[in-house]
């Protein structure tokens, strides 16, 4: 049998840090799941952290984009009664409003899709229900984002 590695402190090097020091005379117990050089690489990545952060960052931007959108469409200059093809053509003649609407479309769709993904994960109890509901959600989301993007980029004020 080969000799087991030991240090002066009598504790093996697996957990890394020296166990006793002058400042720390009591044994130091490491957290059970602390990641060390020897622990295997995580296979999960940080998707949920990124999704959580995205909800907050996109949320702040959406507050500005959506409330501006509501003011223009529903409050200013006659409210909803002014909206029509001519009004849309007038606004999308400007790249500013094209970019505004494009950004709002992408952020709102992704923000909403991630929110509904969370709702599905919370309430659909069977694995197969979760799978099908999310498949439907992702399909509808991708189609709607692509449709909206296509409409903004290919809009033709002289269609008739």
């Amino acid at each position, binding site marked *: 049998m080969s000799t087991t590695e030991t240090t002066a402190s009598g504790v093996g090097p697996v957990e890394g840090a020296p166990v006793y020091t002058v400042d720390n005379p009591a044994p130091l117990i490491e957290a059970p799941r602390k990641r060390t050089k020897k622990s295997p690489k995580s296979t999960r990545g940080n998707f949920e952290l990124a999704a959580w952060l995205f909800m*907050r960052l996109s949320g*702040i931007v959406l507050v500005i984009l959506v409330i501006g959108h*509501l003011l223009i469409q*529903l*409050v200013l200059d006659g409210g*909803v009664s002014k*909206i029509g093809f001519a009004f*849309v053509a007038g606004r999308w003649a400007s790249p500013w409003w094209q970019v505004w609407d494009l950004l709002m479309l992408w952020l709102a769709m992704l923000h909403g899709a991630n929110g509904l993904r969370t709702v599905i994960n919370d309430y659909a109890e069977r694995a197969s229900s979760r799978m099908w509901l999310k498949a439907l959600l992702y399909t509808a989301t991708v189609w709607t984002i692509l*449709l909206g993007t296509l409409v903004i980029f*290919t809009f033709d004020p002289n269609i008739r």
Partner: protein
Amino acid sequence: MPAGTLYRGREGMWSWVAHRVTGVLIFFFLFVHVLDTALVRVSPEDYDKVVATYKTPIVALLEYGLVAAILFHALNGLRVIAVDFWSKGPRYQKQMFWTVMGVWVVLMAGAIYPVLGHAARVLFGS
């Protein structure tokens, strides 16, 4: 409070419930809204015909409800961000909730005339 539930009631839980409900409603409207706007790519007449339904009194009332959902979701979302990122956020979550409700009531009162005025003129004449 029934035994064995994680739900704790009060401002914390009900704001979370309302955030979910309003979020799902807004997301479903967004699908419809992208589709109706896509009609500008079909023909001006078809687009104007569909947008005309947005100008009827019943849909105006639904629009007021949409504004209510969006404003609550926006204001409470800012509260959630404050709870997550501000060191004193969790301690003041209740006060922030009632601030959200106060600002929401003021904005909703301000939205009555712009959003519902057109419907009122249609219904009662101007």
